[in-house]
């Protein structure tokens, strides 16, 4: 409680310092709008920002869900079939080395400037940590527990549901946390290149007009979306940890 209060006070002090710097003409308000101006920009166009924000939030959430489904399904498939792993893994890894942002314009060529393009790009950027979390989690199943399943004559589905999955979930959740931030990143980049709607588009548009207050207002909302999504995954993790009832094997990704 005390630590939280200290942190909150530090943030407040920083915002006040920022405000003071701009008001004292140490920094030009055209380069960096003061917090008060950001707040004002937020309140001046609430309907526009809310509209664009909702679009970004919707696409981020959907992109995140699709990335989780796709990453988990592909990860499970790669885990269960050695042949598939040998064929597909080099491609998956090669795609990770390509600077993915550079491929964004190609997505526009393929899918046009609508929501499908932004969604596809978000999924493309966000599925990989989920895939790695899934394969690492499934590979990390305690070998003794698998032997126990064989001794008891457990079927393939029973082994997956009762043993492999529970062992894999902590790593899967770690991958999902990374995917949550990546999905938002993917949607914003998609909004940059499609230039149709969304907070990313607002940022581009406002920046080109030199409206730094509006840029920062949109970024503030983007932070809100990111925090909400990441928080959602954290809640999921908390619920799982409560069911798990034991210290979870650590799963961490970049």
């Amino acid at each position, binding site marked *: 409680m005390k630590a939280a209060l200290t942190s909150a006070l530090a943030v407040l002090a920083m915002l006040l310092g920022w405000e003071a710097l701009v008001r004292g003409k140490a920094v030009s308000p055209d380069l960096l709008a003061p917090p008060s101006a950001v707040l004002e920009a937020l309140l001046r166009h609430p309907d526009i920002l809310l509209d664009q924000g909702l679009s970004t939030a919707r696409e981020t959430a959907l992109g995140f869900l699709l990335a989780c489904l796709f990453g988990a399904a592909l990860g499970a498939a790669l885990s269960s079939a050695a042949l598939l792993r040998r064929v597909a893994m080099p491609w998956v890894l090669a795609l990770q080395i390509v600077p993915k942002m550079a491929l964004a314009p190609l997505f526009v060529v393929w899918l046009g400037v609508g929501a499908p393009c932004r969604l596809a790009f978000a999924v493309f950027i966000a599925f990989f940590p989920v895939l790695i979390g899934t394969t690492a989690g499934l590979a990390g199943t*305690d070998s*003794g*527990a698998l*032997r*126990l*399943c*064989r*001794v*008891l*004559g*457990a079927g393939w589905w*029973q082994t997956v549901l*009762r*043993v492999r999955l*529970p062992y894999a979930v902590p790593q899967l959740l770690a991958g999902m946390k990374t995917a949550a931030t990546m999905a938002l990143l993917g949607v914003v980049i998609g909004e940059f290149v499609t230039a149709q709607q969304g907070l990313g588009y607002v940022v581009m548009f406002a920046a080109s007009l030199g409206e730094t207050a509006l840029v920062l207002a949109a970024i503030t909302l983007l932070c809100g979306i990111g925090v909400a999504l990441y928080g959602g995954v954290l809640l999921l993790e908390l619920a799982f940890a409560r*069911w*798990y*009832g*034991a*210290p979870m094997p650590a799963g961490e990704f970049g």
Partner: protein
Amino acid sequence: MPEAPTLVADAIRFDAVGKTFPTRPVPLRAVESVSFTVRRGEFVAILGPSGCGKSTLLMMAAGLEVPSEGRLERGGVELVGPHRQTGVMFQDATLLPWLSVLDNVLFPATIRRIPRAKVLDQAMRLIGTVGLKGFEGARPHELSGGMRQRAAICRALVLDPDLILMDEPFSALDAITRDEMGDVLLDLWQHTQKSAIFVTHSIREAVLLADRVLVMSRRPATVAEELVVPFPRPRAPALADSAEFGAVVAHLRGVIARNMA
């Protein structure tokens, strides 16, 4: 050679069983022509140094490994895979961390789709016998190593198998807990007619628990010597402190040393 028909089939029978693992560059010969029988209700200890192939023997008895040669019979029928009436214990307790002690003990029933209500009494009775009463709801990480292995004993016994296979079940425990666990097993076997194969490298455990001790040679494992333990049941843990017990242990130590030479 045709065998004489017996009224009651043996619990398990090894007939010239051998096992070679196809390792590279040289195949690993783990077991060489092992023949022995565990009768109904008999407790047989397999004693041998680490890495001699005795665990491979047990994995074959559990139906997890297939013999390269020879034949394995379980209750008079050739064994081809894990057997429903066999309980197995490993070196580690291998409890599932997200299940309570009770749910771990009931796990075999869950897998076999046997209603909980049918085995709950048996589970609670076993939990009481091994001294885990009051810990039914605890998670494995809240238990000591010895307590976890107690839960694993209950899990191996919960479906009332007629044969229990134990692969150095106490080797991961400290010496004091280990002796305690030996006493728990001894106590459990006073009132059961179950057959057991107990793989160990502890001479004390083998002599205290078993009706018969098979001493294995170095790899590839083969039965080097067989000893019928001359102590009647029921046995008390204090037996291990007697001079006669010491003499048997010393004799076995000599046998092992000769086989290692």
